[in-house]
């Protein structure tokens, strides 16, 4: 972003050998761990990962760019703590909500960063490690002792999630 003085231009010529900046970029790429993320079917957002702080929401789209819209608590998006449907996702980074009113009118459908929410994919992958949950005929959910709500069975479309008992 700074002007390129002659010294830096010379350094650029020497760059391919031992440049930490280059190592930084390469290492960052290699450190990426691809996840199922947006590719998962029936992807839903099941809760926040923000220490109960407001979730930053974005407006816009990939073609025209994104901009911050507002920050709202999870309870504003899901008053009954229900999972939220994901309409679309953008490069495993942004998840589009069906909600288009949380930040007021004219913002369009809002996006939230995948960093700040727990998705059904995350919950399922964690759940398969240590806990099991299932929907009972009564409509309630049951899970093993380690289950942390909400329970989101991957093969069902729950009308509501409830804490495990």
């Amino acid at each position, binding site marked *: *972003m700074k002007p390129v003085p002659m010294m830096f231009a010379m350094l*650029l010529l020497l760059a391919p050998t*031992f440049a*930490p*900046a280059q190592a930084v970029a390469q290492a*960052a790429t290699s450190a990426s*761990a691809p996840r199922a993320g947006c590719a998962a079917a029936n992807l839903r957002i099941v809760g926040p990962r923000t220490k109960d702080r407001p979730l930053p929401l974005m407006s816009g789209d990939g073609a025209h760019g*994104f901009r911050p819209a507002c*920050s709202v608590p999870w309870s504003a998006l899901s008053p009954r703590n229900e999972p939220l449907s994901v309409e679309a996702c953008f490069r495993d*980074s942004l998840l589009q909500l069906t909600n288009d009113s949380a930040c007021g009118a004219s913002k369009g459908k809002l996006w939230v960063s995948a960093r700040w929410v727990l998705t059904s994919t995350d919950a399922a992958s964690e759940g398969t490690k240590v806990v099991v949950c299932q929907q009972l005929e009564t409509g309630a959910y049951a899970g093993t002792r380690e289950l942390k709500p909400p329970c989101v069975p991957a093969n069902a479309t729950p009308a509501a999630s409830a804490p495990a008992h």
Partner: protein
Amino acid sequence: MISGVSGDSAGQAPARRHGGRGPFIESLLLATVALAVLNFHPFGSAHLRRHFSQDLIYAWFGDAEWLHPRLPGSAGLRLAPPRAVVMLVDDAALALRGAAWPVPAAFHAQLLTELEVLRPRAVMLDFLLLDRPPSDDICALLAAADRLRSDRIPVYLAVTRQEDLSRLMNANCMDDAGKPLRADEVLIPVSVRRQADETDFVSRRYPFEEADFEQPDEAVGQGAEGGAPGLPSAAVRIYCDMAAQRDRCAADLERGALPQAGFELAWSPRGDPFNRRWSKAGCGGPPASLRAIVDRTMFPRETGCPPIATLFASALLSPAEDSALGANNEQLFDLVEGSTVFIGGNFRASGDLITTPMHTLLPGVYYHAVAFENLAIFGGKPKIREEFRRFPLGIYLYDWCVLWALAAIFVWREKWIGADAEAMHHGPLSPSLSARAWVAHLIARTPVALSLSLLVVASLFLAAYPVLQLWTLIAAIVTAVCIEVRVASRGELKERLRNVGLYLGALGLSLTVVAFAIWFGYRWLRLPPGDWVGYLSFSTVGFFVAHTAIVDFGRHVGSIRLTRTASGGVS
């Protein structure tokens, strides 16, 4: 080699007659010559020597607590002073939000909004907004900065001139309550000008301020000396905004420094442990001293792991880029919450790269982050070189006092050795006369052509294969000791042991003086370690041995004075 007391016999008399004054004057003369030689650099060569000396010190001991104190660890992030965290924006991060170089203002706005969740102590954007962004983007950026400001998280923006901030004005931006948003209210402009040493272009210094910054009209006349105040550098402004004595902080930092001076940056060779998650290079400290010498890594080496904890913006924006920051982002919160976040670019094409004593190329944002951490770890008392002091004479007077103490130890050692001309003539570590004679006879029995040829071949091999030099040195020492033990008389050996003991005693005392001088200068006079290697070279007394001609000259002058006094002349 001329010995300190091997002057003519005429010179011995005045020294004895002066009693205690002789050693006093001799050590004073030696210290004065030493100071002159240490700082004699008509062509600027001393700067190079000091730079390299300083780099060497930091490369060897840069991870030592006494030289480079540590900030509280992750458990104490909320304690003052906060740690610095670098966030690097690269092409991968831009792509995650459908953006591309140059970084649009809307991307900065998103990043600030995401960072708000983590509650950093302060945020600095090391990006120059050289072109006026679209109004919507400006408003998004100002609104994001305003939200952070309402959370008591100041946002600092890099500028080079007043127009940089003016570009963000007049966009008719409003906050959610309909109140106008002004760039100069929600963003704090800071200077990002760099200082590099002219001789090798390495960034060892950090400016306090940009004195010739073009200020708005209303600021003119508010400077301490009648002129407009300079624009504080990023690290200085951020540090001072957190300081208890905020109003006096900048003045305290610059106390005793010349205008447009900078403070010295201590670069640690130890990478931050957080960077292990992505760094290919090891994030440990420098090698152990013995290993450094044997493995020939005693000189500063490239360090691939930056000394500041580094989070990639892509990791913040997408868990797919770094899924190991905790199920609930625990590591992310631990790292950023309460920290000072420096956001910079990692774009090769931008040219925003610096060379440090330990890094060939490093994104420029580290310059500000390391400067901020230096101010924090040294408690707002950064190191300032002699040449940037308002009163350099005082610093050189301190140097002279240290050298005088070292010279006095040397003179004391010479006196203790006594009047044994033979012992003093050859020094405690030189071969004795018997050993020299034995070696001379051995060489004399060898044909001249053969001995000379062997010498030439050995020299060529040592020059061509430096790895042989250390082993040759060790072999030479062992051989010399064996020869001494075999050929020297009992008396010579006894005398030799005594002289070696005196030498080691003087060396130990000198090193103690040097250690105290280094500690006092570093801790209380805020002197960088540029002269430390010079001090150490004096403590080995080799320098004084080489410059004792001034002592002989002084004695000669003294004898003339005595002669004139005795004959009724001037006393």
